[in-house]
């Protein structure tokens, strides 16, 4: 039997919970994360000595404590998985597994893993819709500002604006203010009054509302204004600072009159999150568009199993749902792994799975309500200018994109990618893919599937030599 039979990609709430459940049940688990410390985004720990530890709710914090020195969990930190493959022909290797291979690049070179079972918990990243000036230094994602403050004790700027949509903006604004930033204001493009229509989902997770009120209270105490129904539609250089222009937007995010301009050192923007599905897609896992927010997510059944045997997926990659859903899905995935490995009988598995599934359902209902209250409608395309950068890596502008779509009669993303180079740069469409799909959809009148950008053999750029080189095999089967 393989010693390191289970691999978990991602050391966020989902991955840590999966690793803990599997390791507590006797499995040997390897957790891979490109970060220098475990925790992922929500459970991010300070990486610099002398910073006070970040505080999290007890159940989440316990994941860090219980996995830290677990005898059956090995962490490969600072390791990026850049390729994942599943041999589609079932073969009886000595692992009895589905022929899974993960190729990693770490601080001392390449590593290859051949796990019998794999849990993907890669989380996601901030979604930002383009606007003129979004590529200027000092314009950062809300998550980046949060990650710097939490992990590094550094502010993105002394005076900052937080803008976009979603409850995460309140978390970030409160966090930055507590860390010493002057928060000029929070521009929330949606109208929170929509909450009234989702009381049922709120009732399922009362703790979440308490959390929101705590952040609102913190902002009020510091007299930080929240401008509802306003969006940042442009950022320009302003001496050695930045000046953001805010406009009133309607429910469809069509921009109206300018409401104010704000001079700041940094603009922190977030329009929700984009799940990381590339590894799952590379393995051949089926995906769909999440009806809640339209993002591309991995298909999983009620055991967190993907459509590829031996591959389980938990957390944001199955749908943006927040840290609690991620944690419960991770635990369920960990137990499902034990069941698959024959370390947990069906009756015991089902007894444990029931309550977890109910918590996941409640959390998902709440997440769906959040997506309804904070949608990202298409009206933002009206604040783009011809010279606005759409694809940041390849510097493709909105004007160039629109004229190429018209000139070549492009009506699918693959063609758009080939003609314009959108999504061909280092980020491979992670940042611009959805915006490009939206623009193309508007011009071509055809809605565009997002899997075009997610489908790549090599999921992160690595040096050529690494592709040729086979890494040290770290499982000891």
């Amino acid at each position: 039997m393989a010693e390191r039979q289970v691999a978990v990609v991602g050391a966020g709430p989902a991955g840590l919970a999966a690793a803990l459940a599997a390791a507590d049940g006797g499995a040997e688990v390897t957790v891979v994360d490109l970060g220098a410390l475990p925790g992922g985004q929500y459970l991010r720990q300070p990486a610099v000595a002398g910073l006070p530890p970040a505080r999290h709710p007890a159940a989440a914090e316990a994941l860090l404590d219980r996995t830290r020195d677990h005898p059956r969990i090995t962490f490969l930190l600072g390791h990026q998985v850049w390729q994942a493959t599943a041999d589609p022909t079932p073969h009886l290797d000595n692992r009895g597994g589905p022929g899974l291979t993960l190729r990693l690049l770490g601080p001392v070179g390449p590593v290859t893993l051949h796990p019998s079972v794999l849990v993907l918990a890669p989380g996601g990243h901030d979604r930002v819709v383009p606007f003129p000036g979004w590529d200027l230094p000092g314009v950062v994602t809300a998550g980046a500002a949060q990650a710097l403050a939490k992990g590094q004790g550094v502010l993105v700027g002394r005076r900052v604006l937080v803008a976009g949509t979603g409850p995460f903006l309140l978390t970030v604004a409160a966090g930055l203010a507590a860390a010493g930033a002057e928060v000029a204001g929070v521009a929330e493009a949606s109208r929170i009054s929509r909450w009234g229509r989702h009381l049922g989902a709120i009732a399922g997770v009362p703790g979440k509302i308490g959390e929101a009120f705590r952040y609102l209270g913190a902002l009020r105490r510091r007299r930080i204004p929240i401008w509802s129904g306003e969006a940042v539609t442009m950022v320009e250089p302003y001496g050695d600072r930045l000046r953001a222009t805010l406009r009133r937007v309607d429910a469809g995010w069509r921009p109206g009159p300018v409401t104010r301009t704000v001079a700041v050192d940094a603009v922190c923007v977030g329009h929700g999150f984009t799940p990381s599905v590339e590894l799952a897609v590379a393995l051949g896992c089926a995906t769909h568009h999440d009806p809640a927010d339209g993002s591309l997510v991995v298909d999983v059944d009620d055991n967190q199993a993907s459509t590829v045997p031996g591959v389980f997926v938990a957390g944001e990659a199955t749908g943006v749902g927040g840290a609690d859903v991620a944690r419960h899905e991770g635990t369920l995935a960990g137990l499902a792994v034990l069941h698959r490995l024959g370390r947990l009988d069906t009756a015991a598995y089902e007894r444990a799975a029931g309550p977890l599934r109910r918590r996941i359902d409640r959390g998902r209902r709440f997440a769906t309500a959040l997506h309804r209250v904070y949608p990202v409608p298409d009206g933002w395309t009206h604040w783009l200018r011809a010279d606005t950068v759409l694809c940041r890596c390849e510097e493709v502008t909105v004007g160039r994109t629109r004229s190429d779509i018209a000139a070549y009669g492009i009506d699918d993303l693959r063609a758009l990618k080939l003609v314009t180079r959108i999504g061909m740069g280092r980020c491979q469409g992670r940042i611009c893919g959805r915006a490009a799909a939206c623009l193309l959809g508007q011009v071509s009148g055809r809605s565009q599937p997002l899997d075009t950008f997610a489908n790549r053999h090599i999921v992160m750029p690595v040096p050529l030599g690494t592709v040729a080189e086979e890494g040290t095999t770290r499982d000891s089967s």
Partner: protein
Amino acid sequence: MSQPDHPSATGVGSSANGFEITVDGVRVPVRPGQTIAAVLLGTGRPATRLTRTQGRPRGLFCGIGTCFDCLVVCNDEPGVRSCLRPVAPGDVIRTGIVIETAAAPPMGTGTDHG
């Protein structure tokens, strides 16, 4: 998260076990565990590189290794994501450089090891 003596308020904090790295020819005090991006921001350098076609400045954007906007040259290795790479003693960082973006992923000229 409350840090009244926030390091950025005074530039990069110094401590007994800190060390220095070189950023664009200038010695900069750092603390172990800091990422290159955090050091650059702490010393008032929001821009990390110039874009290939228009030579426009770019800096940290996603903060977590996804966007590849925060690239710097670290010890002559190009294309290092400054948001992921912790500083190491003796590091020589160059910013404001045009770093060729990869045409296809495997053609990348370098990567970082988080």
